């Protein structure tokens, strides 16, 4: 994972995305990054979705509904958020560093298309 500056991993705002089924996280360095719900759900790094020892992905993408969405998002300390999903999943904690990484990756992928 790339290493980010403090400004790059400090969120200052969060809101529903306008165009897509997802959210926007606004970062302190001025960057606003979009996250689609399904992509975020698939990126869940909790022990039920990723094998703790091997890092192997346990979550089967086809099992996640196409229209999955976040029902509740809450802060975890000052370093992460927890998302409660419409498919019943709720154990994933998303540290801001991981979210920045996911957001950058998604942006690059869309730019390459």
């Amino acid at each position, binding site marked *: 994972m790339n290493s980010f500056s403090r400004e790059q991993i*400090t969120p*200052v705002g969060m809101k529903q995305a306008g165009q897509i089924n997802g959210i926007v996280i606004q970062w302190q360095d001025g960057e606003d990054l979009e996250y689609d719900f399904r992509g975020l759900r698939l990126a869940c790094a909790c022990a039920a979705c990723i094998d703790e020892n091997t890092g192997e992905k346990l979550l089967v993408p086809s099992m996640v509904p196409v229209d999955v969405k976040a029902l*509740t998002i809450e802060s975890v*300390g*000052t*370093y992460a958020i927890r998302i409660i999903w419409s498919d019943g999943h709720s154990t994933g904690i998303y540290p801001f560093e991981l979210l920045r990484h996911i957001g950058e990756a998604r942006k690059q992928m869309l730019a390459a298309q």
Partner: protein
Amino acid sequence: MSNKLPGIQHVIATSSGKGGVGKSTVSINLALGLVQKGFKVGLADVDIYGPSIPVLLGIEDEHPQVLEQTLIPIQKHDLKIMSMGFLVGQDTPAILRGPMITKFIHQFVTGVKWGELDYLILDLPPGTGDAQLSLAQNVPLTGALVVTTPQAISVKVALRGLRMFEKVKVPILGIVENMQGWATPESPSPFRGGQKLSETTGVPFLGSIPMDQTVAISGDEGQPLMAAYPDSEAAGAFRQIVSRLLDQINHTASPAGLGSFKWNLGSGEGAPPTREEANP
């Protein structure tokens, strides 16, 4: 400030990797040092496995009252005190699985009537387990103090504690070295682990507490050092550490961020802030 602890300006956790380094003694005397500077201070003993603050303060027979389902802290030496020791009894071992620890900690966050406080000191259990993690996740900490003894073995474990706070983005306010000993002006102590830890990690070194008999005696008498022996060398060291700690707190800018929120995306209730709201 988070809505989870209304009325409390700063929450500071005292931690150590290893047990037995004098974390509770340090917590008590720092809390009293803050009281002597005129602040309103609370002390929460969250060491579920070995709560020692009631004994050190001579209040082990007290029972906190419960009012409208909240615990009223015990008052002593102008400090408001709550301890796991009051809840589980001094001689009863608290045998707790992870989920119970989280529940207990939660009760200490929301279930104690602290009132208005400038500082709340949390005396953590040693280690880097469920208790520490729950706190970092549930309590809006201003920062953490790391207590170590001068020896390499304690420093090594303290470093783990330090790394844990880094991971959960809790600012580390400084390192306090306890039980510094065998020093004379001619031959300084060969052990200087606290300073070394500070040099390797870049965390400020707040000072050393000398191995002073008054520290141990005051603990056994249930009279804290700062109250019983204010003129001792160790009490002077604590006063100096308190001043440096206050400097550190002022330098640690309140972390920017979203604060504490629980956002229901269906109703829009509890939504976090947005950039547009912050800069209209």
